[in-house]
């Protein structure tokens, strides 16, 4: 665990990464605390208060149905986080074994898996997600599956690359020499050494998932309304861009800030976990 503590210490030294880390932590905390701290029910319609500008009663103003945008943005963080996290985890669960086996055993398995991966990668990611959503129908579970499928090839590629270089290492031969089976050698000695590329790739995909979730919801193919997903809030405010710009500015800011945080953190992690950059 020394290495973890060490990584944390270096994280503190790296100012931009630390800034990203703070944004990520704040985002997670707000998402968890949303039901307790938001002043209004995000779904409560109050037509007397519609299209109000930001004020002390409604920090971010209200939308065309009088819903409190501040509460909706807070709950949106929770939805965005849920979908990003589950889709990245789904892609890790499938992508790691896929890429790992491909790289470790090579040959025919590698050929089949990598051609599958190539096939998925040949579509632009967002277009493929739109296609899958159109086929499955918009709801949160399907959104997770669609994003997961889009991310699998990216994870698999990264893992395969690491495994290909790791399996030639001497300690892998040493593992065989002490009588470990091929399978044990793979998961005890090869996989743990893939941890840093996995972490880095995951944070990058996390940022991408947040964007994609908002984009798909905006297009009406993601989280179905009236759920307060960031993309939905943006989409609702689209018709009031000149009369009520707060309806689009605040969810837009939330998306931008969250993605900025993930990217800063991810970039920093990549630098921190790169052994060549260790002091």
């Amino acid at each position, binding site marked *: 665990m020394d290495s973890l503590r060490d990584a944390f210490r270096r994280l503190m030294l790296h100012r931009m990464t630390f800034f990203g880390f703070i944004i990520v932590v704040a985002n997670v905390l707000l998402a968890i605390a949303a039901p307790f701290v938001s002043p209004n029910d995000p779904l409560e319609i109050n037509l007397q208060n519609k299209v109000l500008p930001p004020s002390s009663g409604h920090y971010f103003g209200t939308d065309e149905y009088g819903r409190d945008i501040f509460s909706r943005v807070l709950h949106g963080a929770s939805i965005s986080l849920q979908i990003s996290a589950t889709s990245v985890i789904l892609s890790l669960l499938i992508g790691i074994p896929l890429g790992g086996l491909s790289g470790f055993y090579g040959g025919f398995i590698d050929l089949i898996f990598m051609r599958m991966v190539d096939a998925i990668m040949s579509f632009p990611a967002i277009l493929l997600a739109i296609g899958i959503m159109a086929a499955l129908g918009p709801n949160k579970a399907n959104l997770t599956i669609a994003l997961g499928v889009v991310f699998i090839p990216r994870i698999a590629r990264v893992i395969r690359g690491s495994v290909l270089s790791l399996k030639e290492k001497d300690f892998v031969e040493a593992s065989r020499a002490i009588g470990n089976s091929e399978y044990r050698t793979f998961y005890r000695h090869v996989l743990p*050494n893939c941890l840093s590329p996995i972490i880095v790739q995951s944070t990058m995909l996390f940022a991408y998932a947040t964007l994609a979730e908002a984009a798909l919801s905006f297009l009406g193919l993601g989280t179905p309304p009236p759920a307060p997903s960031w993309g939905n809030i943006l989409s609702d405010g689209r018709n009031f861009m000149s009369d009520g710009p707060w309806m689009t500015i605040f969810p837009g800011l939330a998306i931008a800030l969250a993605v900025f945080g993930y990217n800063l953190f991810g970039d920093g992690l990549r630098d921190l976990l790169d052994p060549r950059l260790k002091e």
Partner: protein
Amino acid sequence: MEILLEVKNLSTHFFTRAGRVKAVDDVSLSIGIAETVGVVGESGCGKSVTALSILRLIPSPPGKIVGGEILFEGENTLELPEKVMNQIRGNHISMIFQEPMTYLNPAFTIGDQIAESLIVHQGMKRNKALGRAIEILREVEIPTPEKCVYEYPHQLSGGMRQRAMIAMALVCHPKLLIADEPTTALDVTIQSQILNILDKLKVERGMALLLITHNMGVVAEIARRVIVMYAGKVVESASREDLFLRPSHPYTRGLLRSIPRLGSKSQGRYQPLQEIPGMVPSPFQFPSGCAFHPRCLEAMDICKKEVPKLHTIGPGWECRCHLA
């Protein structure tokens, strides 16, 4: 002496795009219980491939054991299924390697890597295995074993890492330890410490040792019998005394002549260090006849045409030379 491991006519070839490489060709050797056998030769003569073949760790493809038998306690390991072979590796036959840094996994502590053998072979629980790891680290003379078990490989010095690797190899009390150039990457003082530890543990445990090295001094120090290899073949096999006092193969004599000696003088003048002329032949194209003939000072016509047989020239003494 009862025989522990017997290698009979082993041939391991590599099938590459550039052609077939006969890395090990018709090699026979035997190791008795608790005996120490040294294997010497230049880089690329097939020493390491012989060792890896014994454990069946030849990367395949491109490598393949194409012939011969490896009898461990009378059983041909080449015919055993992979599962049974896994129970032999690390448990009955262990191996240590030249470069201790790259053979230790950077992601795990020393303790966990030593404990792994016990967990795999004896089904021991992790905590108990870590306790055993501390004991074995003490046996290989690591000064603070309680601290070392929780350290990662990069926190140890080269000599400490080699000790940790010896501990890893010996924790299951193997009957045979194959040491592939265990001291090559270490400086001379550490070398002698490591050799002393190996020698001590070997005697204490009645373990056989197959020591692969290109250092004649190391062999002279701890091996009882010595096998000299050249171009994938055994060229001389003799007791330590015979080999160093009465080397019979021209290659062995060349090797012994090319060891630098402190203050070696003849007729009051310093002599330049003698060498074996030429280069180790390319494994893709070994010379015809005796593979050593282009470099041999005593080569005759027959050496170019006919591969010499391994002649028995004394008790436990064999030599592959037309002159023998």
